[in-house]
Every structure is written in structure tokens, then in C-alpha cells.
């Protein structure tokens, strides 16, 4: 097994960053060995990167379903346990129940979408991470793994594409 190093190349614009991704691919770096860190969301197609998978929508859908069922239980299940007689209305009225079910379903949907971001992104992450603060000033960082023995070759390739800095990066406390 070959030793690998993690390098970080910092670019000013999207165009050279996209070229860097292409060059890394041609140099044998697999897509899952590359990550792009940026201060704004960038289209995967703009960088020539594979589409990222997310389960946030599925989790949200599941949350909506759970909320819907909870709403049904509150509206139509609990009257079995605590019967509340309201003048002129049945014990299990449908129209008021719809309101309850709607609110609970929406709360479930949004609550799990919110939690989904945390779960999927592994938030909160207070341990040291590979990062460079220049990213929040608009720079684009291409983070990639390369064979330790060929590191210099990769550094030169990134510099040739206009990288402002290239080097190994250690995990740091953000």
C-alpha cells in the first residue's frame, strides 16, 4: 500500500479550480479523493464533479410521515383515552383534525430536514478539520489525496494552473 498525502491547492476563481479537478483526474486521482471547499455553493457541473448524494429530502419525507401519523394520533387516537365532548360536534370530527394533522406533518417535515443537515454533515464537528480560512474570503480550495512519493509532481501541476498556494494541510481547530 502506497502512502498518501493530503494537499490543498488554493484558487482565486472557478475556472482554474475546474481545470485542476480535470488535471487531477488525468493524473490518476479518483473523484472520491477530491473535495472542493468554497465560500459559496458551486454547481457540480461547473467544476466537472460528480453530483453529491444527500438524504436530506428522504429524511424530510420520513419526518413528514411521522408528523402526519402523530397528528392523526392526537386528533383521532387520543379521544379514545380522553374523550372531550364539544357541543354540536362529534367526538372525532374530521375538519378540525385536518388542521392538527397538517401542522404536525409540516413540523415533522421541517424538523427532520433541519436535523438531516446535521446528520448528513456530521455537525457539530468541533474536532480538528482540514481547512484554510481564506475560503471564507472567496477563494476555492481543492483538497486532494496523492501518493506521497509523487507529491512534488502534483504541486507543480497545480501551480501551473494558477494555484495561489499548494501544500500539505494538517487538520486544525477551526
Amino acid at each position: 500500500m502506497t502512502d498518501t498525502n493530503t494537499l490543498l491547492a488554493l484558487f482565486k476563481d472557478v475556472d482554474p479550480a475546474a481545470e485542476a479537478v480535470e488535471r487531477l483526474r488525468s493524473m490518476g486521482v479518483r473523484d472520491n479523493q477530491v473535495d472542493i471547499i468554497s465560500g459559496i455553493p458551486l454547481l457540480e457541473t461547473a467544476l466537472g464533479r460528480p453530483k453529491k448524494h444527500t438524504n436530506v429530502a428522504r429524511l424530510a419525507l420520513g419526518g413528514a410521515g411521522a408528523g402526519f401519523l402523530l397528528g392523526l394520533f392526537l386528533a383521532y387516537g387520543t379521544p379514545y383515552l380522553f374523550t372531550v365532548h364539544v357541543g354540536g360536534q362529534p367526538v372525532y370530527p374530521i375538519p378540525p383534525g385536518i388542521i392538527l394533522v397538517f401542522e404536525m406533518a409540516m413540523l415533522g417535515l421541517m424538523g427532520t430536514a433541519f436535523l438531516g443537515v446535521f446528520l448528513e454533515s456530521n455537525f457539530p464537528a468541533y474536532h480538528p478539520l482540514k481547512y484554510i480560512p481564506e475560503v471564507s474570503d472567496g477563494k476555492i480550495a481543492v483538497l486532494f489525496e496523492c501518493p506521497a512519493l509523487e507529491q512534488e509532481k502534483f504541486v507543480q501541476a497545480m501551480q501551473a494552473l494558477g494555484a495561489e498556494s499548494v501544500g500539505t494541510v494538517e487538520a486544525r481547530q477551526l
Partner: protein
Amino acid sequence: MLATVKALFRPAAHSEEHEDPAEHLLLDARPRGEMNDMVMDSMHATSWKFWTVTMFLILTVLVCLVTAWGYMIAEGLGVAGVNQPEYWGIFLVNTVFWIGISHAGTFVSALLRVLKAEFRRPFTRAAELMTTFGLIQAGLSIFMHLGRVWLVYWMVPYPNERGLWPDFHSPLMWDFLAISTYLLASTMYLFLPLIPDLAMARDHSTGWRKIFYRILSMGFRGSESEWTHLKTAMNIFAFAILPVMFSVHTIVAWDFAMAIRPGWSSTIFGPYFVVGALHSGLAAVTMVLFIISRTMKNMKYFIRPEHFDGLGKLMLMITMTWGYFFFNDYIVEWYGGDTIARTLQKFLETGPLAWMFFLMLICNFAIPILTLWNKKLRRTPWVMFVIGLIINIGMWLERYIIIPGSLSINRMPFTWRIYFPRVEVFLTIGTFALFLLLYMLASRLIPLVPVWEVQEGQLAHSLSKFGKTRVATKAEIE
């Protein structure tokens, strides 16, 4: 005939429409680092004026909210002006008003995001903060109205030794659920797009601020997967929070409309309330933007006349819609011929509250409709601030007329009475002071401008040659 045609197609009319592209924030790009510094600078810069106003607001909250509420809790609701038949007084006027204000954030942020209205970008957060802080005031006002506020947990559905269960058939329970859902959802919706800006603030801070932002940004770096999860969730929220927003004020309207009372029992109350909420909410956003742009450092770069112009157009549209719903509600009761309903209308138009009724119409309809059609006025921030203030006065009066005003006249004439608020006046001042205080403190801790969204918009916009002119074009990079 030729002369007429010439007059209609004067080139001068064309030049009046001409705008300098540099006036537009999204075409007047600055480096991201510079924009970050500007926003961080605006949070750090505090003058003696800021602290004086803060101290004044803290004192007002202590006197008008804490002391007055404590007095009411100790003495009971008897110290308030509410009594038969006006058992719903200013507390509920304030509740409805603040929920209305809270609609601004969702409307501006979610709807304009869904519609891809680009002018929203620099002020979505300022509006979203209003939602959260407005809902806090609404919740406090309900708690005041409850009287025995320490028993509020009785509304929470859980098996208990009392053998009691919340009545989910009641609009008041729907209110509890809808407002809780909206408060939670709007707070989450405020937080999600804030994460990248908190990470930016973390990278630009030292000392206790760095620790504060490090905790809140939760290790966000801006990796591809983090952005994907965040954008997906934000899209879900933008679509999902809109029906919740509509449901909240509709349910608030049903608190009234479900009662068979003159002045309240109306099928149109739901949408009428929603439009009223948007009316006051948008007006409040213009007020806040004016104050921010005038008092916070560097904010004039982000908040420009074009934003007031865009909001002014929305306000004009909402003014017309509000007028339509008001007239619809009014004429059905007028035509219906119900004796008590007509008596109530006459009471509101000619009785002791008549000044309020007509002032409401002037503030909510006449002044906005006469001013907001004018582009020059829409692009003058202080004018928009004044119009916003007038609309909010009008909307508060509208709620006063609907709640204690309508309760004055009922089907039992021997109970008719005019409502005079007592301790409620102090508590009202207290909620306004608390809202301002929270907003002022937040403005020094939270980046009020979503810098990453502004930069995203600036990257998407550019000037292209079109014939002999240069026009703004937008690339779909989202």
C-alpha cells in the same frame, strides 16, 4: 395624429427609465474578503449612542414589561382594562400585530427565494430576524392574556393526573400548535442560511467572539457535501414554510371567525388576515432596513434604493389586495342587513372609535396607494420609512377595531361598553422595547447581511452588450 404619436414616443420618456447599472448591488461587485470585512466591521462598531439606546431599552423593558407584568400577576387580570364584554383587549391586538410582523421574514425570504427575486439577497436575514423576534412578542402577549401564565403547560398534550386533555376542536389549540410550529420552523429557517456566515465570522474573529462563532458554526467548512445538504434543506424550507405561514394567520383569523359574532363571523377573515399580516410585515421590513442602513457602518453599500423600490412595489400590490379584502368584508355585512352587524358598523363609523376607523383607512390604503406608485418616492429610503410607519400604525388600529372595537357591540345591548386599556399600555410599550432591544443586540452578534448569498448573486450577474446599450444578464449558477 402624427403629432400625437410623436408625443407618445418621446425619447425623453426612455431616458427617464435609464438607471446606472452601478446602482445595483449585484452589478457593483466587491471582493468577498472586502465584503466580509465590511459586515464584520458593522457588527463591531458600537458608539455611545448605541449603548445609550440599549440602556434606555433595557430600562423600558424592566419597567414596562417585567414590573408591569409582575404587578398584573400579583394582583390578577383585574388591573387590566379587559372586562365583559371586551374580554379580549390589547393583549390579543398585540398578538395578532406581532404575528403579522413575523410574516415579513418568511414572505421576503421564502417566497422571493422560490420566485428567484434577486433583490431579496442582502436583506433576507434582517427580515428573518423580525420573524423570530416578532413571534417572541406574540407569544409573550398571549401569555399575558392568559393571566395565570404559570399554568401554560396545561395546553401541552400529555397524560396527567388532572384527567384533562387539550381540546383539539378549539381554534385556541390550533393557534398554540400553529404558532409553535411557525416559531420553530422560522428559527430553523433563520439558522440554516446563517451557518456559512457564522463560519465566516469565526474565521474573522478573535477572543470570545471566535468561541461563540465556533460553537454556532459547528465546524462548517463549505465542502461540497455540506453545501449540498444545506441547499437541499433550504429549498425544502422555502417551499414548506409558506403554507405554514399562511396557516398561522388563517388560524389566528379563525379565533375570531369561528365565533358567531357580528363583525367577526366571516368566511373571508382568513385571507383578509394573511394579507393584513403581509401589509404590516413588509412595512416593518422597510422600516428596519432604513434604520439599519442609516445606523450601521457600511450598510449603505448593501441596502440601496433599489431594495426599497422592490419592496415598495410589493407593498403597493399588497395595499390594493388589502383594500379589496377590506371592502369585501365590509360590504357583505353592510348588505346583509343584520341589525346588530349594522349597529356595529355604525358604531365604528360614527361612535367614539370613528377617528380610529377612518385613520386606519387613511394609513392602510389612502396614503400607500397615493405614494407608492411613484418610483421616485419608492427609491427614497426615508419616505419609505415614513410610509412603513404609517402602515404599521394603521394595521395596529385595524386589529384594535376588530378585537375590542367589535366586542363593544353584541347581541346583548345591556352589556355594551367601551374598552379602556390600563396596565396593557405599559405592557405594549414593553413588547415594542423588547423587540427593538433583541434586534439591536442581535445586530452586533449575527451578520445581518448574508454575504455568501450576495456574492453568489454578484457572480451570477453581469453586464452584456445589447444593441447600443449594456443590460444586466443573469447566469443560472444556483
